[in-house]
C-alpha cells in the first residue's frame, strides 16, 4: 500500500492536488493526433506529476496540522523516504509554500506559509 493510501486525509490531499496549477496545466495539454510513443510519454509524465502533487499536498497538510517539523519528523509521519522528501521540500520551498523557521538536532525546521 502506498504512503498516500495510509494517510487519513488522503481525499483532501487529492482534491488540493487537482486544484494545483501544475496538474491543471498538464491535464489541459492536448495530445490528440500525437504519435503513440508521445502519448505514452505524456501519460507517464502526467502520472508522475499527479503522484508528486498529491504527496506535496500531504506534506502541507501535515505541516499545517502539526506545526513546524524537521525532515526526519515529516518522514516518520508521512512514510516518505528522505530522498523523495528532499525533492518535494525543495519544490515546495521554491514555490514559496514552505519556509525554514529554525534548526533542531542539526536539521532545518520547516513551516507551511
Amino acid at each position, binding site marked *: *500500500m502506498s504512503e*498516500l493510501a*495510509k494517510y487519513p486525509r488522503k481525499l483532501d490531499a487529492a*482534491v488540493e492536488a487537482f486544484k494545483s496549477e501544475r*496538474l491543471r496545466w498538464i491535464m489541459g495539454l492536448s495530445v490528440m493526433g500525437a504519435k503513440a510513443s508521445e502519448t505514452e510519454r505524456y501519460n507517464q509524465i502526467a502520472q508522475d506529476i499527479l503522484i508528486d502533487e498529491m504527496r506535496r499536498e500531504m506534506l502541507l497538510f501535515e505541516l499545517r496540522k502539526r506545526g513546524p517539523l524537521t525532515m526526519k519528523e515529516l518522514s516518520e509521519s508521512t512514510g516518505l523516504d528522505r530522498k523523495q522528501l528532499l525533492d518535494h521540500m525543495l519544490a515546495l520551498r521554491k514555490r514559496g509554500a514552505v519556509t525554514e523557521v529554525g534548526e533542531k538536532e542539526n536539521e532545518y525546521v520547516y513551516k507551511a506559509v
Partner: protein
Amino acid sequence: MNEAESATSTENAEKALGAGFDPRILVFTCNWCSYAGADLAGTSRLQYPPNARIIRTMCSGRIEPTFVLEALRDGADGVIVTGCHPGDCHYVKGNFRAEKRFNFLKTALKQLGVEEDRVRLAWISAGEGEKFSLLIKDMIDKVRELGPNPFKST
C-alpha cells in the same frame, strides 16, 4: 487488492449486510445525451432503484476530478460520470476531455487505495434509457458488494 484492503472491504460488506446498507450513488449527466437518456428511462417507465441522485451539467467536459473526490469525501458510496458517446458531443470535444480527466482520477484513486468500482464512466445517448436504468442497477449491486464508503465519517 492486497490483504489489508480486502479485509477492510470484507468488514464493510459484513457491516452493510447487518445494517441493511442502502448505497447512495451520485450520477453526473450531461444535458444533451445522458440526462435525456435518464429522462427517457422515466418516460418509458423503466424502473431503477431510487438510490441514484442525478446532477445535470451542460457537458461531461465540465466534470472535474475534484467533483468526484468531494462527492466521495462527503458521503457518496459510488459516483457515475456519464456523457455523450465519443464523437457525438454537443460541444465537439467535451467527452474526450471528460475521459482524459477520468483517467487521471482513476490513477489518483488507485494511489489512494480506493476501490476502482466506486467510480465509473459511461457513455449514454438520448435514446438509451434502458442502458441508463441497467447501469444504475449494476452500479448499485457493485457498491452493495463493496460496502459503505469508508470515508463517510472522516
